[in-house]
């Protein structure tokens, strides 16, 4: 799962080139002002899905925009797909921007799923962007992203 080499300059350049190739609609993956965390997430995305372009669309990422505690954040992903034997969602990947590690989960589906609808609970260290990427049977990749604000309760243990 984790690349032994870490993120090399080569990886970042390759990623940038691939992004430029599919640049028309892949706006969400261009580096924002705070480039360092977004690069770790982009590199993780490239490690998981390879060089193919990612387009926003088809994916609905449902996360509350403001959460009371980052330890347990409910997160649902629904992908618009007929889920037939020839047209289905192969996998759903979730990434985060600011945790120490950018991968969250990869879920493998298939035509037997009937519906590309999954939900889980994730941990977020800080206010950040979450990206969900769906891999379809035709080799295309689609994505959605949301910014989540993390608050913290008062009166903790330490």
């Amino acid at each position, binding site marked *: *799962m984790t690349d032994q080499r870490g993120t090399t300059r080569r990886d970042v350049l390759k990623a940038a080139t691939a992004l430029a190739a599919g640049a028309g609609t892949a706006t969400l993956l261009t580096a924002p002002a705070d480039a360092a965390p977004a690069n770790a997430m982009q590199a993780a995305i490239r490690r998981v899905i390879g060089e193919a372009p990612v387009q926003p669309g088809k994916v609905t990422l449902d996360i509350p925009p403001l959460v009371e505690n980052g*330890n*347990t*954040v409910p997160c649902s992903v629904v992908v618009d797909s007929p889920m037939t034997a020839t047209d289905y969602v192969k996998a759903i990947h979730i990434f*985060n921007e600011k*945790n*120490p*590690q950018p*991968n*969250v*989960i*990869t*879920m*493998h*589906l*298939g035509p*037997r*799923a*009937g*519906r*590309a*609808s*999954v*939900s*889980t*609970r*994730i*941990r*977020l260290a800080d206010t950040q962007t979450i990206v969900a990427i769906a891999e379809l049977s035709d080799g295309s990749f689609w994505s959605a992203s949301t910014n989540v604000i993390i608050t913290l309760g008062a009166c903790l243990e330490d």
Partner: protein
Amino acid sequence: MARALINVPAKAKRGEIIAIKTLISHVMETGFRYSNTGQIIPRNIITFFECTYNGEKIFSAELHAAMAANPFITFHTVATESGKLEFTWTGDNGFSASETATITVE
């Protein structure tokens, strides 16, 4: 074995899409936290989850440290025939847990 809670409808019509909810007790220690004495608490997470339906894999997942403790995963499947669903979780330090559920499909 770690306590797990599975929710599968006991009965379904053939071809019906059913929701399956799974919850398992696990601390999901990230490996990024420090103890009171300044030592890194080693990672201890579930890394893999799989569900089979009468022996055929219908769902699987690779989990990372960013998954919340007591992992909760829900997914869907088409009720094709009566039988057994098997759920397995594996992870760090040889962690292994499994549960089964039966479904009657009319």
